[in-house]
């Protein structure tokens, strides 16, 4: 494609077309030769080697860590044991105990009937 008649340029005369076509052919041929240049490939590799990828700024990482720590502290502070009223709810330590129970090998039924086993042990000791 040539620039004739577009962008407000006057349509190209045939002799101008000849000039443009001849020069395009000459420059295309020169570019084909340039494409084989090892120095050009080297220059391209050298340029790409200087590419830098954007990394998160240190202040941004520090800000995120601070915000996360703040949120965690707030959750622990305003947790269920600090609730307004109502039945006593387990605090963080109690929650940790629950996790330990769940992680242990004992069956959940054992803990569900824990009162029964306590009574059995006391009753058995008495009897």
């Amino acid at each position, binding site marked *: 494609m040539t*620039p004739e008649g577009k962008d*407000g340029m006057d349509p190209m005369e045939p002799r*101008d077309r000849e*000039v443009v076509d001849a*020069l395009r*052919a000459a*420059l295309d041929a020169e570019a084909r030769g340039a494409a084989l*240049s090892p120095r050009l490939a080297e220059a*391209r590799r050298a*340029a790409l080697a200087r590419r830098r990828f954007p990394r998160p700024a240190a202040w941004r990482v520090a800000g995120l860590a601070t915000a996360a720590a703040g949120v965690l502290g707030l959750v622990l502070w305003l947790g269920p044991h600090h609730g307004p009223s109502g039945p006593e709810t387990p605090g963080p330590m109690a929650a940790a105990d629950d996790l330990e129970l769940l992680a242990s090998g004992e069956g959940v039924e054992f803990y569900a009937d824990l009162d029964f086993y306590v009574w059995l042990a006391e009753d058995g000791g008495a009897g």
Partner: protein
Amino acid sequence: MELALDRTVVWTGRTAAVSAPDDATAALDAFLAEVGPRALVMARVGVRDPDEAMDVVQDAMCRLVTKYAHRPPEEWRPLLFRILQHRIRDWHRRRAVRQRVTAWLGGNDPEDGPADPMDGLPDPRAAVPSDGVRLARAGEALRAALAGLPLRQREAFVLRAWEDLGVAETAAVMGCSEGSVKTHYFRALRALRAVLEDHRP
């Protein structure tokens, strides 16, 4: 077309899609592999010295990669050409300063003065060549004449006629008004037309 980084990502002109850093690097590599030779020819036309032209192109590529690689791929082409034209102009400014210093010191710069556009042109009256030879000679003559044009005319002509940039795009790359682009282009075409006339049978 040479593809570097052993990847199969091919620069597809102005619609390359990039998603990850590796893909972006491969797309950038493919882009430079495609446009690099044309940029080198432009630089040769601009500075008329093959070694200096290579330095100018490498400089422009580095600048594009380090400063503008994050921009959308469709912007890389005009950006590279813009950087290249700036570098070519810088080269001419430095050379002019060097020539002034050399003249002040009383020396002679071998590159003094603008190149004669007629230098290196084949003699059109030397023989009666065939059409193919005549066209090839005309191309060589025009190429030499192009290198002899004033810098801005060269830029306008190469960007418009060879790179197919529109007037607005060319103006953006050259950093001038659209009217200036038209003027430079017209003057270049007129000068080159005269050269071609000399090669008519």
